[in-house]
């Protein structure tokens, strides 16, 4: 313990003595969240959808969940009755309303034919078309799922698959802010750790340290402790901006989020450690850490593009990226109020264990 603390204290001194890097580590996430947040928010406070659920059954809430799970649709407060629809449209509270009529689930169960009404604000024609498209795509997805459950077939005879291209900005700030937490954490943590370890290797201080009885595991733990703190500060800053500037809701529990965030930070640090075992110099470590985290997280984790609409191969790769699962968790928690993530938890813990064990194994191997 004494040894771990000695390493951690020393690492903290390095960080504090290099205010420029510290500023980058703290300021970069803030700049990113403000830029992204505003750019997207402007475009988009508009793709809001409200539900009028007259059925109030598990099936009807499942339908709501499916629709809102699309990255492009932001649910707003549910409407209690029909009379509120028009005033809501007039006040611009939502762009569309999905009305689930009474008896929806019963009809679905008995005849497999159950109408749902969609009302769209046509004042802005192009947005109306976009909303229409997204809602239809969401419903088509649900149909496919129901059909496969009922008939055991994966595909329907004819099926229109609409994809909207060239318009990735159609994501709302509510989706981007949690995504940024996932992106920034993995990037900063992997970057800082891999550079810190590569530097010690480069200057020979790692070897000097290892002539003492300190164990490699103690070195690793001591070195990453301060970066866990930096990661936590970054996450807190982004979430604070999201909450107070962009009104990102927190429908789940901060407590649960904190737990998963720490887990995710630790995995990200492990990734940094792993990268450092391949990199000979600080520069290589830096480039590898950026390339290895930024692009995959942006493109493959579901941050910008929904994983469900990816080609098969990319979808398989996305399953190997920790951010994919963390993203589902943080979005689920904040936007949907979901609290229970058995699959994602298992996936994260498994990925983390593999990454950390390989990293530690390679770290020890490289000492020779």
């Amino acid at each position, binding site marked *: 313990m*004494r*040894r771990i*603390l*000695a*390493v951690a*204290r*020393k690492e903290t*001194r*390095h960080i504090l*003595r*290099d205010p420029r890097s510290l500023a980058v580590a703290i300021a970069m996430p803030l700049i990113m969240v403000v830029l992204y947040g505003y750019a997207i928010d402007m475009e988009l406070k508009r793709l809001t959808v409200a539900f009028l659920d007259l059925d109030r059954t598990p099936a009807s809430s499942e339908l709501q969940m499916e629709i809102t799970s699309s990255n492009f649709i932001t649910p707003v407060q549910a409407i209690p009755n029909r009379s509120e629809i028009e005033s809501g449209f007039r006040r611009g509270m939502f762009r569309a309303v999905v009305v689930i009529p009474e008896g929806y689930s019963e009809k679905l169960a008995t005849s497999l034919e159950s109408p749902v009404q969609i009302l769209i604000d046509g004042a802005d024609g192009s947005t109306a078309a976009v909303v229409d498209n997204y809602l239809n795509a969401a419903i088509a997805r649900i149909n496919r799922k129901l059909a496969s459950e009922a008939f055991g077939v994966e595909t329907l005879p004819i099926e229109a698959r609409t994809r909207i291209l060239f318009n990735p900005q159609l994501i709302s700030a509510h989706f981007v802010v949690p995504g940024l937490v996932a992106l920034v954490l993995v990037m900063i943590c992997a970057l800082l750790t891999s550079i810190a370890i590569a530097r010690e290797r480069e*200057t*020979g*201080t790692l*070897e*000097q*340290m*290892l*002539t*003492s*009885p*300190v164990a490699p595991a103690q070195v690793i733990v001591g070195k990453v402790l301060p970066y866990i703190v930096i990661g936590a500060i970054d996450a807190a800053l982004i979430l604070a901006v999201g909450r107070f500037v962009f009104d990102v809701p927190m429908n789940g529990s901060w407590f649960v989020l904190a737990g998963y965030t720490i887990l995710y930070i630790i995995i990200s640090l492990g990734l940094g450690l792993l990268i450092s075992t391949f990199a000979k110099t600080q520069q290589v470590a830096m480039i590898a850490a950026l390339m290895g985290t930024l692009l995959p997280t942006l493109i493959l984790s579901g941050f910008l593009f929904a994983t469900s609409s990816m080609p098969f191969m990319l979808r398989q790769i996305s399953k190997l990226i920790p951010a994919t699962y963390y993203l589902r968790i943080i979005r689920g928690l904040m936007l949907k109020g979901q609290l229970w993530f058995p699959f994602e938890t298992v996936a994260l813990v498994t990925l983390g264990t593999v990454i950390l064990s390989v990293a530690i194994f390679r770290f020890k191997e490289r*000492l*020779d």
Partner: protein
Amino acid sequence: MTLNHSHSSNLAVVAKDLTRCFGNFTAVDNLQLEVSRGEIFGFLGANGAGKTTAIRMFCGLLKPTSGEAWVDGLPISRDSEKIKRRIGYMSQRFSLYDDLLIEENANFFGGVYGLSKKEIELRIAEQFERLGLTKQKRTLTSELPLGFKQRLALACAMMHRPRLLFLDEPTGGVDPIARREFWDLIYETAEDGATVFVTTHYMDEAEYCSRVSIMKDGKIVALGVPAELKRKHGTQTMEDLFLKLVGVSGESGESVE
């Protein structure tokens, strides 16, 4: 592995058939060596002879390809953790933290050696006084002249009062006066009962050692007390002896690298 224990117990370093290869290049080739406690042992050899590689094996930083060595009576293959508690190592390249104060560097190494806060303070006061570093305690390490950096490295390697010190070219690159002063410190350390295992390229320094070995291409080509070695090979100075045995010149000591 047949070495008996009573024999090895008054030996600080023993190497038996110690070998280390990198790929198909043999850096240390069947090294045989015995260094007694309390010696100042000069481990000489030309560039690339394998000195650093051998020391790194003694310190547990590198595994031998074959053979065995005992440090303070403990086999390096099994007891490297225990060995690490008993030795101090000063690497060939200055490897402390430039962005820390010199006191913080010493503090850190005290910490990884597992000393308590009190012990660390005590040792820093003691050592900095002895090594003439007290005034610079709060200086940034990067601002120290090389000679002082080397003293700091020695202080860090000795935080835990090791019984055995491995110094790999501790005086490389500094002027003769600084080297002389550093050697005074080495003598003091040896007088306190520690064994000093030191490499150098300066042949005047070799004269200060109680015994030396000269290494070439991973093998020891001469071993003994400097005066006897010179007599045996009929040379006037260590410089000439080195030239004769290794075929290249060591540093005479006057020149500064």
